[in-house]
């Protein structure tokens, strides 16, 4: 050991600077969430790849495909709650971001207000999606109904599971916020869960476009 290697003592070592990294940049939880979302993107990429592969290889080039039970082509029209649910989810992304901006300013009231609305909109989305599922199910379309039912329920189902996960995450943040745990300096959990919520929103926009807006073939 040389003399100058002794100069760095514990007070100057990274041990002392923890748990808050003094070198700036985004916080560990936010970076962790961004990396987690990378893996989530790849998970949905796998499901979307399956959807497009099945769709491109559908018998007779027909999409939506033929219903194996009735021998008629499926026709997916806008379910009654799809459009309102979509609008509410997009709105909730905005209110979630307003909550983040508010806590960055140190405005706790605005933060809690916007966050509560976000949680409420998330729950509303889940409920509306539930009604649509019930309607589809009553028409006999299940996971079992050939590639159409399988892909529809798998993709929207995994998205809905993520919405529910996001609602739970935001609820925990709301609960902690009500306890006064966040401030303009310490709100990594808010930043991280809002990133997750935006991700859930973006997945839905892609999903909605692919399932409902992308024109089918063979009509």
């Amino acid at each position, binding site marked *: 050991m*040389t003399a100058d290697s002794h100069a760095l003592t*514990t007070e100057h070592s990274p041990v002392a600077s923890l748990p808050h990294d003094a070198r700036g940049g985004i916080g560990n939880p936010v970076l962790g969430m961004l990396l987690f979302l990378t893996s989530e993107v790849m998970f949905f990429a796998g499901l979307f790849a399956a959807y497009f592969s099945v769709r491109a290889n559908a018998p007779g080039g027909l999409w939506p495909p033929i219903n194996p039970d009735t021998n008629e082509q499926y026709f997916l029209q806008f379910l009654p709650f799809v459009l309102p649910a979509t609008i509410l989810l997009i709105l909730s992304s905005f209110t979630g971001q307003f909550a983040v901006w508010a806590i960055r300013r140190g405005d706790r009231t605005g933060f809690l207000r916007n966050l509560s609305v976000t949680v409420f909109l998330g729950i509303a989305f889940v409920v509306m999606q539930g009604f649509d599922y019930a309607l589809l199910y009553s028409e006999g379309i299940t996971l079992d109904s050939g590639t159409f039912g399988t892909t529809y329920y798998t993709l929207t189902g995994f998205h809905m599971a993520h919405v529910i996960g996001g609602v739970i995450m935001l609820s925990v943040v709301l609960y902690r916020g009500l306890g006064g745990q966040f401030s303009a300096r310490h709100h990594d959990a808010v930043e991280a869960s809002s990133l997750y919520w935006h991700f859930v929103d973006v997945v839905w926009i892609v999903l909605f476009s692919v399932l409902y807006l992308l024109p089918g073939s063979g009509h």
Partner: protein
Amino acid sequence: MATQVLAPAARGYRSGLYEWLTTTDHKKIGIMYLVNSFIFFFLAGILALGVRLELAQPGLQFVTDLTYNELFTMHATAMIFLFIIPILAGFANYIVPLQVGAPDMAFPRINALSFWMLPLGGILLFLGFFTGGTAAAGWTSYAPLSEDRPLAAVGYGQDLWIVALVLVGTSSILGAINFLVTIFKMRAPGMSLFRMPILVWTMIVTSVLVLMATPVFTSAVIMLFIDRNYGGAFFDPARGGNAILYQNVFWFYSHPAVYVMVLPAMGMISEILPVFSKKPLFGYKAFVFATVAIGALGFSVWSHHMFTTGAVYLPFFSLMTFLIAIPTGVKMFNWIFTMWRGKLTFSTPLLFAVGFLSMFLIGGINGAFSASVPVDFALHDTYFVVAHIHYVLFGGSVFGVMAGFYYWFPKMSGRMLSESLGKLQFVLMFLGFNLTFFPMHQLGLAGMPRRIADYSSASGWQDLNIAATVGGFLIAASMVPFLWNIFISLRSGKPAGDDPWEGNTLEWATSSPPPPYNFDRLPEIRSERPLFDARYGRIGH
């Protein structure tokens, strides 16, 4: 000497077992990773011996066709997902925070969660033996075979396989996030990216591969689960699904997974070779770029496992596969020129590292054969491919794991392992390995298909199969000196001291084993070899 900043809080007595079960210390978690992985290594090894016993002579002597399918399926699944991937993660768990000068991983509790998913997944996987049968469709579990066909699993085995692998995959993903945040956010002052130890670099690339490939695998097996249990039609051609789709999604993960299984081992021997050659790693930056290149190319070669399906664009995937030989070749030169004119000390870690070099070279060469489309059409699904994968994953990864084990055991335990037992283990393992797997090249060229329990006595394959079986038992025998070595060294091994090998990197700057907070102080970091600098001043630069 300064006072400790992170003195543990005063608290009541807790038993040692409770301490281990609830720990969030990356070093204890790392050791638990190693122990857990070695347990599954031995279980999967016993399954492999079952395979070798059955193949020693024509006819069915010991097992039925179905049991044989279970043996090789569980052997490969456990070796890959419960031994090689986790044990490398375990080494990294112990070493990476030390090498970057951090007190722990970025998310210690998530680290514990990552670990505990592994024994749970392993138990679920092996539970199949008690519920009427394990998975039996091969570790690849191709649909539609895995969807409920004769000779695939009966009962819940395949579903348990899926659930276990989703758990293990999630464990990997969380681990990868943890490594990346630790490496990018918690490095010691002065440690710029190009002053990081090579193992840390390989863990960055490995973690990115895990992060981007494993979720795709999760989606593949979840779709398989939906097909099997809820009447889904993803992979069932009879109902409009696409069987090749499974292979595409599966290999999109499982080819990068090969690099997940070998890059950290490459990183480990790149730590060992310079230390035992008394030279810096030759071409540090070239090595880093080669590692990144392997990672990037790794995402564009998955279909070389599917050449014979007729459903992939052959020229592209063949070319990309050949290209991987370039960065791998760069690394070979890095390693050889690191040793060139070095002051070599042939301790056990170096022996295993050189074992890695020579065996991985063979695995690379026979891999390049298979990258050629016409050759692959002849060799596909023969024992040649079995030889290739074992030269890469056993000759490569397992020898690397052993090198790393002998190198870091003194740091983890504070005791040296016995050199003579270590060398005995190396000789037995090296001979046994080559006796087992070298003949498989010839068997493959002679046309012996993999995954068969029986072959004709007129085929002329028996002699080589007997050689392979004898070799398999030699490998098993090499585990005796290994375990005995660990046992006696923990009891009465020579005390290791802080830095028994004259290492280069920060883990050797603290005591053996390190205190819970890792470092009292850190040396100044002005190169990728801070301890070398501290030892010799900076005359080496």
